[in-house]
């Protein structure tokens, strides 16, 4: 199965509610994509950014369960945790997501797995937070590594 076509991620920032919508298709059946999101050994292999080591600390993947994982680099470690609110195999994951460095901020995440047929799957992830400010900051902080040059440019701009 020499499928070389890969799919680009699309990101939408909702205008009406502080929500980020991420859409991506995979050349794999929905059960596999779902498993890669629920099996801790598998998720540790792809979740973290490159250069960060991801350790799954706790993973109780069932409705009402919770999780915690830690990412480490030379500068320190970053811990994240949340609760599995609803799990429906091959269909849906509803969970919360918190960066422990900002414990008051909680994102409500909804992962919808759609079987496209022919062994393909569309995954739509929405993250809802409680203010546009937090949503935008979340998008900006997603770029831990490359963001510094962006900040520098912003500094120059704001200094004028």
């Amino acid at each position, binding site marked *: 199965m020499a499928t070389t076509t890969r799919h680009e991620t699309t990101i939408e920032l909702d205008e009406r509610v502080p929500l980020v919508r991420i859409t991506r298709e995979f*050349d794999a059946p929905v059960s*596999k994509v779902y498993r890669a999101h629920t099996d801790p050994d598998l998720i540790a292999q792809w979740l973290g950014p490159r250069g960060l080591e991801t350790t799954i600390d706790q993973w109780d993947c069932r409705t009402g369960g919770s999780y915690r994982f830690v990412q480490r680099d030379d500068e320190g470690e970053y811990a994240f945790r949340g609760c599995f609110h609803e799990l429906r195999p091959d269909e849906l994951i509803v969970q919360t997501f918190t960066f422990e460095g900002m414990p008051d901020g909680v994102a409500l995440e909804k992962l919808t797995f759609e079987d496209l047929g022919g062994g393909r799957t569309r995954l739509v992830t929405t993250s809802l937070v409680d203010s546009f400010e937090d949503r935008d900051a979340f998008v900006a902080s997603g770029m831990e590594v490359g963001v510094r040059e962006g900040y520098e440019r912003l500094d120059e701009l704001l200094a004028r």
Partner: protein
Amino acid sequence: MGEALRRSDHDEERLSKVFAALADPTRRDIVARLTTGDHTVNELAEPYDVTVQAVSKHVKVLEDAGLVRRSREAQRRPVHLEAEVFDLMTKWIERYRRQVEERYRRLDALLDEMPDDPGDGDAAPRDTANTP
């Protein structure tokens, strides 16, 4: 972890200003309207059910955040959008997108290696046939 964060505390503050300015729906709307061209505060105030003073305050917040500027010399003092800031924000979103894309490419690779579920029909690992 404080190390990395502390270094960018100042940057965070600047950034927070921009995000705070854009967190208000009226200000977001004002910014959207300025993308089509400069407008005076009076023009900007027209569609809203608020006073010109209130809109003027919104413009001031946007100005303090570096999102718009008002020319000093012109009598009408039209409000001008600082497109560069928005280019920057578009870049942030694009960077975020690329980061997510990178993560999903790792997932692509993993999915290729994973054996199929028994329920998927053929139990043989289909995708690993050609890989060493």
